């Protein structure tokens, strides 16, 4: 690692810093990297990046314990209970399956975040997409894998379309995507409620009080990994989700488009000056965000429910926002975030059986969100101050060096 560091000449920073940097090794390098706007890793930066989430988690756990203490309960037992419960294979399957939906939703949010867009509409996008995809899948009648491909493509297109509305509103009329996507969530709910009526496309199975879009043929079920009869299957779509994570990382960090996207997110005017069409970027990233959001309902649709009904899971999009924040829009970070939130969600039910309220987990999730925001900002400021001090010291050292040199001849 050291080798690569030394091999990279610091082109962007001035001669003074560059000179000092080689002396102070890694720490100074971070300064150079940061000012250059590039993404150069060093131990320092990695530590700072990890400090945020860790600090947030610790604070959340401590605060939850305080809440537990205040309500006269044991401040530690719930965690033990949850971990013990998570040791069961069926619960692990549940966590992983749920995490796959969360992960896709969070990626969708993260694409927007990277571009400085806040797509709150992931929830509506994935629900509408899942509904449309389920409908098409139940009626298209294509052979197995083709039908699955069709379902997934329809889901992505519908998700992209729904997010695209907000994108067009933003680029043409300057409507804030925060407002439009929230409203589109509500419209999606009504639209689905209308479309799923038996008078339109819905099916009400005999003797049931539920409405569905009809069952997918069993050849269109996405094969999963069978763990055991009791634990059930890990959705095959989990691996698609992982693939999406890899693609997300590749596109953002290894392509021209990804660079443009991040640049526009960091500073629209600077990006425009370097020849990026900001409006087009807004629309494109909204479309991508929506397409990924469309995938969020797929693990459940293709792996478990095989139909979109009135009790299709809701709220994944909002959880996705939490997770994207927690994972700092980083493909790996989001994966951990998704697993953490899924863990809290799924193991909370054991609390009810042991005399605790399962809402403790909800409280904890809320506290994590708050502490994440606070701790990231704290760590960022700390990093900034540290960096400033370091640069200041280096400049002072350089100045001292110059003055002494100047003094000698005098």
């Amino acid at each position, binding site marked *: 690692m050291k080798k690569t560091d030394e091999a990279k000449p610091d082109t962007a920073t001035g001669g003074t810093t560059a000179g000092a940097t080689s002396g102070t090794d890694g720490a100074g390098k971070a300064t150079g990297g940061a000012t250059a706007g590039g993404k150069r*890793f060093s131990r320092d930066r990695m530590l700072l990046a990890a400090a945020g989430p860790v600090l947030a988690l610790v604070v959340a756990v401590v605060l939850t314990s305080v809440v537990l203490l205040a309500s006269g309960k044991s401040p530690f037992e719930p965690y033990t209970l949850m971990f013990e419960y998570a040791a069961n*294979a069926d619960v692990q399957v549940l966590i992983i399956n749920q995490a796959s939906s969360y992960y896709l939703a969070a990626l969708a949010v993260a694409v927007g975040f990277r571009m400085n867009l806040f797509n709150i509409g992931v929830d509506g996008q994935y629900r509408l997409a899942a509904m449309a995809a389920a409908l098409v899948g139940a009626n298209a009648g294509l052979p197995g894998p083709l039908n699955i491909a069709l379902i997934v493509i329809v889901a992505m297109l519908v998700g992209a379309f729904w997010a695209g509305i907000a994108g067009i509103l933003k680029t043409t009329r300057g409507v804030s995507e925060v407002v439009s996507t929230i409203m589109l969530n509500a419209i999606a709910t009504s639209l689905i409620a209308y479309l799923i009526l038996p008078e339109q496309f819905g099916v009400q199975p*005999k003797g*049931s009080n539920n409405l569905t879009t009809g069952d997918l043929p069993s050849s269109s079920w996405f094969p999963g990994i069978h*763990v055991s009869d*009791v634990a059930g299957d890990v959705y095959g779509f989990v691996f698609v989700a992982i693939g999406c994570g890899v693609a997300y990382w590749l596109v953002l960090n290894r392509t021209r488009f990804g660079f443009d996207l991040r640049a526009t997110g960091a500073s629209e005017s600077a990006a425009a000056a370097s020849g990026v069409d900001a409006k087009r970027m807004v629309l494109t990233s909204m479309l991508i965000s929506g397409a990924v959001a469309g995938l969020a309902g797929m693990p459940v649709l293709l792996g478990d429910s095989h139909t979109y009904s009135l009790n299709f899971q*809701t709220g994944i999009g909002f959880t996705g926002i939490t997770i994207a924040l927690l994972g700092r829009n980083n493909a790996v970070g989001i994966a951990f975030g998704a697993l953490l939130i899924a863990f809290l969600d799924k193991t909370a039910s054991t609390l009810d059986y042991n005399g605790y309220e399962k809402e403790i987990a909800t409280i904890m999730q809320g506290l994590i969100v708050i502490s994440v925001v606070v701790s990231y900002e704290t760590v960022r400021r700390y990093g900034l101050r540290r960096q400033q001090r370091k640069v200041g010291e280096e400049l002072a050292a350089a100045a001292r060096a110059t003055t002494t040199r100047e003094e000698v001849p005098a």
Partner: protein
Amino acid sequence: MRRVSSIAVAGIGIAALAFTTTACGGSSSDSKKDKGAAIAYDVGGRGDQSFNDAAYAGLAKAEKELGVKVDDQEPSEGESDADKVQRLTELAREGHNPVIAVGFVYAPAVKEVAKKYPKVTFGLVDDDTVHAKNVVNMVFNEEQASYLAGVAAALTSKSKTVGFVGGVENPLIKKFEAGYVQGVHDTDKSVKVKVQYLTQPPDYSGFKKPDLGKSTANGQLDAGADVIYQSAGKAGTGVIEAAAARGKWAIGVDMDQYKQAGLVKVKDKILASATKGVSDAVFNLIKSVKDGKPQSGTVRYGLKTGGVGLADSNPAYQKMTKVVEAVETAKKKIISGEIKVKTTP
């Protein structure tokens, strides 16, 4: 290089998780000893003064009269079928028998879990799609009770305008609407019925938010309605409060809401309640399991068997002899089959 390693870390992390999953042989579903009866609630949970509380009343009665141990579990917001499966599995695993799922949303979950625990009897309220030897489908003729509520409303209304507030616009609640509207119009064609739903599925908050019920009811009261029938779970309490605050009538649902402790302040304005014998259904099922002769198949509760009805605990209602008579006549006609009540509006 670092970047590569971060991907590697992710890969290892995920692989590790996958391994723990497969390697860990145990599961949370290894059976334990008898723990008595258990119910899993529908959206809204305990304290809705109607549907879920009715189920709880049956459970509590079984605890008191049969001496069985009981447990109950609430759902989470926006959960998936997998969560419901987990909840029922957990209850069966803990050794509960019977396990009663309150609400049609549990149908797919019951279907799956009943297979895993063939010795446990599963009850499913409001759904008739899961047919297995150890599953009891408990269904109700809500439209018949609602018809009677419609008759009472039509005859009590002075403004010739009555209201219906449904919690969530799904087929189940539409059964209430259908019976009610038919009851009103069969009694008096000139009476107008204002029909409103609080939310559309999958937004189930219409069963949970009393404030939504209150504002919708106020809208109907403003429009001249003087009797409002609600079928909105916990949100229905808001409807009753709004009507009572203006001195107008409300009609209760699911349980005899006149007798509900949570509604004691407004009970004088609860004209009657269209009851749905969830409580009895739950009790009967638990009793059958206790007696060693568990129910099976579909158990239908209608007017004929007293499974649904119109509760008349309010003395003010009992004094309206004309209304009481008309309701009794309608009841007889429904039982005899002379009146056929629609299940869809």
